[in-house]
C-alpha cells in the first residue's frame, strides 16, 4: 500500500509547497508545521502496523492541531480544540481496543470483544469525522487556510483510513461479525453528510461535509471487504485525496481573488479564474466518481460490493448518496463558478504556479482513471488478496441483511 501512499503524499507535499508559495497560507510557523505533519504521517505509514506507527500518527495529529492554531484567530483556536479533542478521544478509544485485542492478535472473550469493537468504531468515527461525531471537520474548514484543511483531509484523514484498512486485514472478525453496525455508521455519513452538504451556503464547509459523505463510501468498502470492496476503497481514497486537494485549492484561489470565502451567492468566478473553475469541476467529477476518472474505478467496485453483499436496498442507498453528491457539486459549480461574473472581477489573478498545481492535480485523476496501472495502483489488489475472511459468507450475508434494513430506515 505504501507504494501508492508515499508517492501520493510526496506529490501532495510538492503541490502544497508550490501553491502556498504563490498564495500564502499562514505565517512563518505554518511551513515547518505542514512539513512536519506530512512527514510524520509518511513515517507512520512506513512504520507498519503497531504501537510505534500509532504514536507517530498521533504525533502527526498533534502537529496538525498546531497547524490549525497557527492562524491565530479565535475561530482557529476553537477549531483546533475540537480537532485535538476528537483526535485524543479517538486515539484513546482505538488504543484501548487494540490493547484489549493484543493489537489484533486475538479475539478477547465476551463481553470484552464487544467493548473492543465499540471502541474501535467510536475511535475511527472521531478520527475520520463520521456522522454524528463530525463536528471538528466543518469547524476546521471554516477557520483554517485551504491548504491546512487539504492536508488534514488528504493526508491525515487518509492515513487514519489506511490504519482502518490495516485493521480490516488483521482483525476481520471486528468487521464481519458486526457488519450491520459498521454499515449503519457508514450510511449515516453517506446520507447524513450528503444532506448537510446540500444545506451549506459557504463552499469550504460544503467541501468538508462532502468529505464526510465520501468517508461513508470508503467505510462501506472496508466493511464489505472482499477484493471488490477493498480495491474499491483504495481507488476511491485516491480519487478522494486528489479531488479534495484540487477543490480546496480552487476554493482557496477564489478566496484569494475575492478577499473573502466564496459562497453560493458568489457569481461567475470562472470568468476571472478559468483554470481554478475548470480544476474545481474536474476535481468534483473525480470525487463524485464519474467515468473516466479514478473515482469511478473506486465507486464501481463499491457498488459491486454493495450489490453482492447488501442487495438492492444497500445499492439504492449508495446511489442516493451519489445523487446527493452530484446535486451538491453541480449547484456549487453553476452558482459560484459558471454564468456571468457578478462583481467578482478586479481581484488578483491566479498565480501561475498555483494554476499549474491545480491543473496537475485535476488531470491526474483522469489519467489514473484511463491508465490505473501507471502508478502501481495494482498494489492494493495484492493487499486485498491477503484478506482472508474467516466468517462464512452466509453469516456475512445475514449480518448485511440487517444492515440493509438499517439502510432502509436511515433513508
Amino acid at each position: 500500500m505504501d507504494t501508492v501512499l508515499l508517492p501520493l503524499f510526496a506529490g501532495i507535499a510538492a503541490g502544497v509547497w508550490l501553491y502556498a508559495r504563490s498564495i500564502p497560507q499562514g505565517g512563518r510557523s505554518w511551513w515547518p508545521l505542514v512539513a512536519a505533519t506530512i512527514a510524520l504521517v509518511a513515517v507512520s505509514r512506513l512504520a507498519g502496523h503497531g504501537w510505534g506507527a500509532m504514536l507517530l500518527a498521533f504525533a502527526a495529529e498533534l502537529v496538525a492541531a498546531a497547524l490549525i492554531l497557527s492562524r491565530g484567530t479565535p475561530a482557529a483556536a476553537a477549531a483546533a480544540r475540537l480537532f485535538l479533542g476528537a483526535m485524543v478521544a479517538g486515539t484513546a478509544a482505538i488504543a484501548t481496543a487494540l490493547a484489549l485485542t493484543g493489537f489484533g492478535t486475538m479475539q478477547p472473550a465476551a463481553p470484552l470483544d464487544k467493548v473492543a469493537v465499540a471502541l474501535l468504531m467510536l475511535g475511527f468515527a472521531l478520527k475520520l469525522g463520521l456522522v454524528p461525531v463530525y463536528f471538528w471537520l466543518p469547524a476546521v474548514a471554516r477557520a483554517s487556510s485551504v491548504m491546512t484543511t487539504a492536508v488534514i483531509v488528504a493526508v491525515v484523514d487518509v492515513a487514519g483510513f489506511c490504519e482502518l484498512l490495516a485493521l480490516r486485514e488483521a482483525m476481520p472478525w471486528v468487521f464481519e461479525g458486526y457488519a450491520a453496525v459498521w454499515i449503519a455508521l457508514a450510511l449515516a455519513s453517506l446520507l447524513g453528510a450528503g444532506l448537510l452538504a446540500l444545506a451549506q451556503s459557504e463552499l469550504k464547509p460544503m467541501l468538508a461535509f462532502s468529505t464526510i459523505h465520501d468517508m461513508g463510501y470508503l467505510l462501506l468498502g472496508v466493511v464489505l471487504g472482499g477484493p471488490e470492496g477493498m480495491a474499491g476503497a483504495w481507488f476511491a481514497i485516491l480519487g478522494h485525496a486528489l479531488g479534495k486537494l484540487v477543490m480546496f485549492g480552487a476554493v482557496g484561489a477564489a478566496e484569494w481573488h475575492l478577499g473573502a470565502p466564496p459562497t453560493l451567492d458568489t457569481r461567475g468566478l470562472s470568468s476571472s479564474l478559468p483554470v481554478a473553475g475548470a480544476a474545481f469541476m474536474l476535481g468534483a467529477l473525480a470525487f463524485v466518481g464519474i467515468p473516466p476518472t479514478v473515482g469511478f474505478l473506486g465507486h464501481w467496485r463499491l457498488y459491486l460490493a454493495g450489490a453482492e453483499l447488501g442487495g438492492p436496498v444497500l445499492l439504492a442507498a449508495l446511489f442516493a448518496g451519489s445523487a446527493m453528491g452530484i446535486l451538491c457539486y453541480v449547484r456549487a459549480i453553476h452558482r459560484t463558478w459558471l454564468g456571468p461574473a457578478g462583481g467578482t472581477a478586479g481581484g488578483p489573478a491566479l498565480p501561475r504556479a498555483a494554476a499549474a498545481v491545480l491543473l496537475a492535480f485535476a488531470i491526474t485523476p483522469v489519467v489514473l482513471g484511463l491508465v490505473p496501472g501507471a502508478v502501481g495502483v495494482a498494489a492494493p489488489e495484492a493487499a486485498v488478496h491477503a484478506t482472508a475472511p474467516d466468517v462464512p459468507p452466509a453469516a456475512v450475508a445475514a449480518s448485511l441483511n440487517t444492515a440493509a434494513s438499517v439502510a432502509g430506515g436511515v433513508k
Partner: protein
Amino acid sequence: MHPITSPILALLAGVVLQLLLARTLTPAGKGILATAAAGTAFAASLLLVPGAMDGTVLHAVLLAAGDGGVALRLRVDGLGVLFMVMGTGTGAAILLFSIRYMEHEAQGVTRFYAIMLVFIAGLLVLAGAADMLGAYVAWEVIGLCSYSLVGFWYRRREAADGARKVLLITHLAGYGFLVGLVLVYARAGGTEWTDPAVADAFTTGVVALFLVAAMAKSVMFPLHTWIPEAMNAPTPVSALLHSACYVKAGVYLVARLYTVGDGQWQAAMGMPLAAVGCVTILVGVVFAMAQTDLKRLLAFHTVSQLGYIIVALSLGSGLGLAAGLFYCLSHALFKGTLFMCAGAVQHATGTRDLRDLGGLAAAMPWTARIWIIAAASIAGVPLTNGFVAKWLVFGAALDQGLMAIVMVAWIGSILTAFSFLKATVNTFYGAPSAALAGRRVHEAPPSMLAGMGVMAALCLVFGVAPQLLLVPVVAPAVAGLGVAWPLEAGWLGLLTGRGALALTTAGGAVLASVALGYAVYRFAGAPVAGPVSVYSGGEPLPAGDRPGAGDFAGMAEDAFHPVYALDPDPVYRAGWRRLTRLAAAAASVARAVPERRPVLTVALTAAALAAGVWLV
C-alpha cells in the same frame, strides 16, 4: 492498426493535434484539422461496411487490461457499423460547417474542436463496446462532452443553466444504466452483451433501469425537458447533439438490448416503449408548434422524431427494427441539416426568433433550398428519406395490426408539416422583417453550404433510392441484432419485397407528378412573382394580412391548451425544493446537537454504538 480502432484513433489523433497546435493554428485551421480527422474516421468507418454486409463481427482491444484485468474491448457488428458511419459522417459534415461558423470566436476554439472530436469518438466507443461496462464509460464520456459543449459560452447564464439541466437529467437517469449494470455483473460475473450468462442475469427490472437511462438520453417524455434548454450552445453543437452523437445514444441502447438473450426482452419492453414513444411523438410536436425560437422549435421536433424511432424499435419485428434504424439515419441527415440552416440564419441575421425573421429566401437562396429539402424530409414528403422512414414505420405497425400507432404517427406527421410550414414561411418568405431593416444579410459561406448541402442531398438520394442505405447498412444492423429481415432487391437494386415495391412505385408516381407539374409550369407560362393574398378559408386574418409566427404559435396554444400542462419540470423542481427543505432541517438538528454539544454527541454515539454492537 485494427480496422475497427482506426476511426476512433483518427479522432483521438485529431484531439492530440488540436492540443499540440493550439497556439500555431488559426481558428479556421483548427476547424480544417478537426474536419480532416472526422473525415478520415468516416472513411475508415465506411471500410467496415463490406464486412458488416457479410455478417462479419470484428473484435479488437482499444485499451489494454490495466484495472483488475478489465480491458476496453470492442466488438463491432452491423449495428455498431451503422452508428459509426452515422456518427463520423454527420460529424464530418457538421465540423465542415463549423469552420466558418466558429472562426470569429474569440476564445475556446481549441476546446470546442477537441471536445467535439471526443464526443464523436465517444459515440464510436459506445457503439463498438463489447460489454456494458465499456458502453457505460462511453455513455458518460459523451454526457460530459455534451455538458461541456452546451456550456461552451459558460459566461452566459442561459448557456450555463442549459448545461446544468443536461447534466442533471441525463446523468441522474443514467444511474439506471449503472445500477442495471452492477446488478447484472453481480449475478453473471461479466457484462458482455452477447454472453448467455448476462442474458440469464437480466430481469424485467434491469431492463426497466436501462430504459430509464435510454429515455433521458433520447429525450422521451417525461425526461425530455433538457433538450430545449440545450439550445444556447453553438449551432454545430446543437446539430451534433440532436442528429447523431447524443440523443442517438439512447436509441443505440434500446436497439442493443435486442442482442441480450436473442431479443427475449422485446415482450417485456415492447408495449411500454411503444406507449412512451407515442406520447413523445405528440407532446414533442405540439410543444414545437408553440415555439417562436427557431432552434427551440427544432429541439421539440427532435423529441417528436425520436418518438417515431423508439416506437419503431419497440415493435420488435425485422421490419420494425429496420424502420427504426433507417429513421435514425434519416433523422441524423435532416435534423443535422435543419440545425445548420438555423445556424446559418442566425449567423447572417443575428437572431433566431421567427417573429424577427422573414423574406430571407432572396438573400439566402441556397440556404432556403437546403432548408426546404430537409423540412420536406422531416415532414415526410415523398422522394425524401423522411418519407421512406415513415412509410417503413407505418408498414411495420400495420403488419402487427397496431392501428393506434399508425394513427399517432399520422397525426404527428400532419402537425410536423404544419409546424414546418410556419417555420419555413416565417423565415424565408413574405416581406423582410422590420427587425432586419438596415442589416446586410448575406448568404452562408461556401463551406457552411457544403456541410449542410451534402446532408440535404443525401436526404434526396436516400429518398429516391433507399436501398443504397437499406442494403449495405440497415439490413446488416438488423441481422447483427439476431432478427431475420429478408430484404428483397431485384432489378437495378430496386426493392421488390412486399411493401417496399409499393414504396418504389409511389416514389415513381410522385416523381412523375413533379415532372409533369414542372412541365406545365414551364410551358404554360409562369406567373409573375409578387405578393398574393393569403388563403385563410374564411378565417379573419391578423393585422398586416399575413399570419406571423406569433399567430401560428397562438393558434397552437389555443388549440392544444391542455397538452401544455404536461410539463414535468415543475415536478422536478418540487422534488428539489423538498430535498433542500430536508437538508435545511438536517442542518438545524446538526447545529443544535453535534456542533453545539460535541461532548454529549460523543457520549450518545458511544452509547448507540455499544447498543448496536451488543444487539448484533
